C-alpha cells in the first residue's frame, strides 16, 4: 500500500542520473583498460540522457528528448573515433593499459 501510494517524481530520475554519472566518473578514474574507460564515459552520457528525459517529462517539453537524440549521435561518433585511437595505439603497444601510456609527463 505504501508503495502504491508513492509516485515517482522527476527527482527520483535525477537522483538516479546523478548516481549513474558518479559511477561513470569513478569508473573512469579507477579502471586502467582504455576500452572500459570509454565505457564509463558512455555511462556518464547515459546518466545525462536519463536526466534530460526526466526533465523533458517534468517540463512537458519534447526538446529535452531531442537533445538526447543528439547525444546518442555524439556518443556514437566518439566511440568510433575513440576505438580507432585505441586500436591505433594498442597495435603499437599490445596489451597496454592507460597507465602504460605515459611517455610524456612533467
Amino acid at each position, binding site marked *: 500500500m505504501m508503495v502504491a501510494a508513492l509516485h515517482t517524481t522527476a527527482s527520483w530520475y535525477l537522483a538516479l542520473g546523478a548516481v549513474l554519472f558518479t559511477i561513470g566518473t569513478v569508473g573512469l578514474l579507477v579502471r586502467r583498460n582504455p576500452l572500459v574507460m570509454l565505457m564509463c564515459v558512455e555511462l556518464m552520457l547515459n546518466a545525462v540522457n536519463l536526466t534530460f528525459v526526466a526533465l523533458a517529462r517534468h517540463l512537458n517539453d519534447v526538446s529535452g528528448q531531442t537533445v538526447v537524440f543528439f547525444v546518442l549521435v555524439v556518443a556514437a561518433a566518439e566511440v568510433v573515433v575513440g576505438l580507432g585511437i585505441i586500436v591505433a595505439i594498442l597495435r603499437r603497444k599490445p596489451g597496454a593499459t592507460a597507465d602504460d601510456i*605515459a611517455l610524456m*609527463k612533467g
Partner: protein
Amino acid sequence: MLSVVWLIPALPLAGFVLILLFGRRLGEPRAGWLATATVTGSFVVSAGVFFDLLSRSADERQVVHTLFQWVPVGGLRVDLGFLADPLSITMALFVTGVGALIHLYAVGYMHGDANFSKFFLYMNLFAFSMLMLVLGDNLLVTFLGWEGVGTCSYFLIAFWFTRDTAARAAKKAFVTNRVGDWGFMIAMFLTWSAVGSLNYVDVLGKADSLSHSTATAIALLLFLGACGKSAQLPLYVWLPDAMEGPTPVSALIHAATMVTAGVYLMCRVNPILAEAKGALTVIAIVGAVTALFAATCAVAQNDIKRVLAYSTISQLGYMFLAVGSGAYVAAVFHMVTHAFFKALMFLGAGSVIHGTHDEQDMRRMGALRKLMPVTAVTFIIGWLAIAGVPPFAGFWSKDEILLHAWDKSPALWAIGLVTALLTAYYMSRQVFMVFYGDARWGDENRPHGEKPHESPWIMLTPLVVLAGLSIVGGGLNLPFTSSTKLLDRWLEPVFGDRLAVSSFGPGGKWALAILATLAGLAGIAVAYAVYLRKRVKAFEPEILARAWGVDDAYSAFVGGPGRRSFLAVEWFDRTIIDGAVNGAGAIAKGAGTGLRRLQTGYVRNYALGIAVGAVALLAWFISRGAW
C-alpha cells in the same frame, strides 16, 4: 689695480693650462720657469692690489669683484667672485711670495725627474686653488679652492706614485681631509639655510643675527673642516705621511700654505666665532692639545721631514690656540712667520736630502754644516726662529699667542709654554743631528759613499731669501707701540672689535716674553746636553716615535671593525638582498619543479584532477545558492 684681482689666481691657472697643453714640449727646465713666472706674476699683482688697498681708507678696504654667476638656483646665488680685503691679500701675498720661491727652488730640486713638467703642472694648479681659497668671496668658492688644494695635495703626495707608501699616503690625506670637508659642507648648508646666502659679506654682516646654537654649530663644523685641512687632532694623521711627496711640496703645501687654510678660514669667519664663545674654547683647547701632542711626537722622529711635519702640526696648533683665544692677528702673524721659517726649514731639509742623495734618516747624517754651509746657516736661522729666540720672527709671533692664551686660560698658556720648550728641544735635536756631531753618512750602508754636496744656487737663493724673512719677519707686528703693530692695524677692518685685547700691562708682557724665551733656551740647552755633549741619554721612546699610537689605532680600527662592517654590508647585499632576488627566482623554479610532479603523465591522474576541479567548482557554486 683692484679690478684685476682675478689675475692673481688666473695667472697660475694659465700656467696650468699651458703646461697641460705644451708641458712635454716645454720640457725641463722651461716648464719650471713658466710656472715660477706665473706665480711670481701673481705675487706682483697681489702686491699691486695690496698697495691699492693700502691707499684706501680703512673702511673701504673691502672690495668684491664678481666674474660670473656660478651656481644660481632659486634662492641660492653663488657667484664666482673675489673678495679683496686685508686678510685675503695678506694671505695672497705670502702664498704667492713663498710659493714663487718654492717654485724656483723646485726647478732645481726636481732636476732630472722624468715628470718634471707634470710636477709644475700640479704646482701651478695648487697655486691657483690656494688663491681661489684665499680670495673667494663666498664659502663655496673657498670650498672650491679648499678641495682643489686637497686634490693637488693628493697629486703631489703621490707624485712618486710607484712607491706604495706614497700612494697610500696620498689617498689617506685626501680621505682624511674629506672627513673635514664633510663638516665644511654641512656648515655651508647651515649657513645658507640660516642666512640665505653664502657670500662672506652677507653672512658675516648678519652673523650677529644668528642664534647662538646655529652659530656654534657652524663654527664647530667649519672647525672640523679646518682640523682636516690644518692637521689638527683628531684628523692630523695624514700630514706626517704626506712627507712622501717631494720636499718642495712639503714646504709649500704641507707647511707654508695649504695647511694654514684652516686658520685662514677661522679668521675669515671670525664674526660667527664671536657669536659662539663655546666654539672658541673648543678651538683653543684642540689647538693647544695638538700643539703639545705633536711636539712630543717630534721629539722621537728620525726622519728629517717627519720632524718638520710634526713641528708643523704643533705650530698650527699654536695658531688655533690663538684663534681660540680671539687673537686672530696673532694667528695670522704666526701663520706668516711660520710660513717663512717652516718653508725655509723644509727647503733646507730638501737641500740636505738632495745633497745626501735622497737620505732622509737623520741618524745617517751629521756634521753637514761644513759641506753644505749655506744650507746649514739658513737652516740654523730657521731653527732659531722657531725656537723662539729673539729677535727672530718666531719669537714675536709665538710670544703674542702665548700672551693671549694666558687671557683665555693660564692652563692653555702653560701648555703653550711647555710646547715652546719642546719645540726648541726637538728642533735643536734636529739641527745637532744633521749639521753637527759626527759624520754618520759614510758608513757601509751607503754603497755609493758619495760625499754630500751643497745644492745649486737655484735652490739656495730661496733659502737665503726665506732666511732673511725669518729674521725680519717679526717686524710685521712688533708689540712695542700701537704704531709698530703694523699687522694689527692693517687687519683691523677684518677683525674690528672682535679682536682680543691683552689684559697685561707692559710689565706682564715682558715677564711672559722672558719666560717664553727662557723656555726656548732651556729646550736648546737640554738638546745640546743630550745630542752634542751626550751627557744625557736621549729620550726617544717608541711610543712617541709612533705618535702615541694614534695612527696605529686608526689603522687598527679601519682595518678591523671598519673593514669588517663594510664586509658585512657587502655580505648583506650579496646574500640577503641579491639572495632575495635570486631566491624569488628559485622559489618560482622550485614551485615549478614541485608542480611538475602533479603532471604525472597518467591520464587517470589527469582525470582525477578534472574531477577534483569539478567538485571544487560545484562546491563553490552550490554554496552560492539561494536556499
